[in-house]
């Protein structure tokens, strides 16, 4: 292969990378971004799309170049060049991908640490799942504990979610928040399950909690509403709920 051919192939790979990566990074694959985590995860995804497009372009260009250039002429039953390998090339395609994936791993690690950094003023919410129902408890509500069937949270405040299940494994997911964690039925000792998830919603709106771990025949419809509201609205909602619930359920406290 001449230098000119090599140069052309490299150009083809770069052009193809651009053709794939540029439109793909313009699309919001993950949909609406409604938490601080969403921005970080989507950026990581876009970086991966660019790197992956490059790797995929190498494969496509080399494959189709070989098919086009080295296809045997009709009637030619000879053999190809008896090349058994090339040590330098083999070292290169071992070392370079290693560097790329290690970069990806470290970057992911950094993002993960940021996602899980805890703020001191977070709002604790206990989420309890059972076949096929979600319950949201606000233990630290100023007017006394509050229980709700919809998840109402203030915008731009970190939530400290505690997840438990009463029967089988469920999974808590709000796609717009990009946050997911299984709810595991734990034994008396808690089985050392990591059930604390921080998340900071940063966009007002109404979303859905989706159960993403198969939990039985009602799995597909095990949903709950999420309302992200301004802080004052949240405070007044909480106060109203507390008043209503303390009034009616004074004796049946769980």
């Amino acid at each position, binding site marked *: 292969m001449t230098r000119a051919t090599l140069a052309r192939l490299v150009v083809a790979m770069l052009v193809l990378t651009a053709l794939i990566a540029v439109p793909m990074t313009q699309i919001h694959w993950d949909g609406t971004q409604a938490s601080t985590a969403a921005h970080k995860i989507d950026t990581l995804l876009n970086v991966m799309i660019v790197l992956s497009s490059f790797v995929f372009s190498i494969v496509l260009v080399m494959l189709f170049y070989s098919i086009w250039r080295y296809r045997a002429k009709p009637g030619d039953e000879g053999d190809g060049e008896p090349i058994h390998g090339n040590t330098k090339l083999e070292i290169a395609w071992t070392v370079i991908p290693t560097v790329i994936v290690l970069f990806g791993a470290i970057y992911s690690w950094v993002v993960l640490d940021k996602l899980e950094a805890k703020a001191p003023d977070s709002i604790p919410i206990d989420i309890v799942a059972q076949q096929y129902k979600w319950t949201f408890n606000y233990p630290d509500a100023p007017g006394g504990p509050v229980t709700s069937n919809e998840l109402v949270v203030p915008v731009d405040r970190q939530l400290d979610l505690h997840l438990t299940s009463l029967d089988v494994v469920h999974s808590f997911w709000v796609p717009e928040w990009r946050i997911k964690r299984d709810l595991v039925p734990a034994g008396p000792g808690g089985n050392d399950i990591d059930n604390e998830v921080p998340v900071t919603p940063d966009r007002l709106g109404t979303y859905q909690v989706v159960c993403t771990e198969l939990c039985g025949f*009602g799995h*597909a419809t095990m949903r709950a509403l999420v309302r992200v509201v301004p802080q004052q609205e949240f405070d007044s909602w909480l106060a109203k709920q507390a008043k209503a619930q303390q009034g009616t359920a004074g004796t049946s406290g769980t």
Partner: protein
Amino acid sequence: MVATIKKPGLPRAFFGLLIGFAFGYGLVVALRAISGLPLTQSEQTGYPQLIVASIAGPLGFLVGLGCFDYWLRWAAGRPTYPAELEHKDHGATSWKDYFRFNTDHKVIGIQYICTSFLFFFIGGAIAMLMRAELAQPGTQIVDPGAFNSLFSTHAALMIFVFVIPIFAGIANYVLPLMIGAPDMAFPRLNALSFWMLPLAGALFLASYFCPGGAFDAGWTGYAPLSTGAPLGQSFFNLGVQFAGASSVATALNFLVTIITMRAPGMNFWRLPLLVWANLSTSLLVVAATPFIAGAQFMVLFDRVLHTNFFQAINGGDVLSYQHIFWFYSHPAVYIMMLPGFGIISEVISTHARKPIFGYRLMALALLGIVVLSYTVWAHHMFVSGMFSWLRVPMMITTLLIAVPTGIKIFSWLGTLFQAKLHLRSTAMLFALGFIVTFTMGGISGVMLGMVPIDIHVSDTYFVVAHIHFVLFGGSVFTIFAGIYHWFPKMTGRMYDEKLGRVHFWLTLIGMYGTFLPMHWIGMEGMPRRVADYAAQFGDWNLLISCFSFLLGAAQLVFLYNMVVSWRWGPKAGPNPWRAKTIEWMVSSPPPIFNFDEIPRVVGGPYEFGVPGARHAIMGPAEAEVGRPAPAVAGTAGAAST
């Protein structure tokens, strides 16, 4: 009648099935009577009388079939078989010989392949039913509970009784020929391994007749959903035992065969890569498969014996099921991929007419995958609530496993470079299609391996897309490549290339149309394993369903081609692809003990274009002089037709 029942064979096998079933049922009823309990018990997780009967029945089937006849005589100190009957179970002279206990690795290979394809078509029909349901939001065809059974049985059939065993089948046929061995190391064990496979599939399917329907906790069967599920779940637990035992026995057989039965001169650096691939796969199977067997036994015990492995309320640990399960089931994805890597190497080298680029690194990459694949299982559990520190090391090993996999992709591309490429074989089309789709599956795998991305897309259609890119675009494409490649060797006939090309293109279009959009709807918020979904995904799902029907229909072209060509195809010579490995040096199909003379291996397996290079020569050293170059002498006459 009595004579038929006394002779080993299918009639005696079904008789044994009945006896075993009745014995198991009777045993439980008798024990319950003695203990003063009601004779039968029908809690949904119980039915001990049916569970024991469903263990004893299949064992009775195997005994009736004759799997243990020789061993039992030997164990009892009775004369085994007289010399003239020593090989009475070996080889096939009519189609009936494929329906009995047969110790010939070539017969067993074909038994494996045909049985697996039967389950492939059943599993495929189930998938069609699922796509019909999913064509619109809401529930139209099946209710949500039945839908859970459909995807659970679809996955169980495809994984445990199609992809894993069909690779064992292809290797069963080809591998002893490739290393110059007359058969596998343990032919009777080999036959027993095969016959456990239809039993496993039958148990999975029998669960449809259980009260409460077929098992519906997914092929993953997470506790405690599985420990509390209706009776069908126990049939999954039992089916996995038979499929697993079959895998482990076959893997041991391959290991011993590869290590001890290589022809003279066949050192490890002269092994074809298919043999290397099966060596690696077998190393995974023997050590990992016992873990899923254990996990399913623990679930079964929790269900029937009221043990508390996974009952959190009684001190059990729910997450430990997932750890044990994935400690097998992640290596399992390589069990379902490495043999395919081997097939692709054979096909690409032959049709590119070039030596495999970087042969030794290719072999070492396989071993690298074996080692790494034991260290990545918890990447299935990033959102499970497991000990959080475990996520980062598991992420690093997961991403690193892309390196040996990448080496294989690049080496195949290197093999194509400066080749003399022939696209006339459907096998080669599937091999090239595999390179593209598997690269995409690998890329989405790397994304899933990154914890932050996984947190978002875990348990969504993105995962469904990924597994089908690697298992359909990966494994199944390699299976088709292998079947087309060795069809002439196995049947002695050529298949129709035109129909093959139709099959390839329809499959390729159907596969991309079905599984590519699943990435998008998954990222946008559609969870997996749901019968009903938000209306916003309706259009995409309709499109996916249409393409999936095309994909399903394409497989009928394949079926027609195989059946008709097997019966009426033009005769194939010993070596229609002009390949270099030893299986192509004997007639198609090969004679009963493969070789009249054991070949001697004198060089590497892919010496295309090297003047004068040979992989193997037939016969003793002296015969080398004065014999015509293609050493296929002495095989034509012995061909079993």
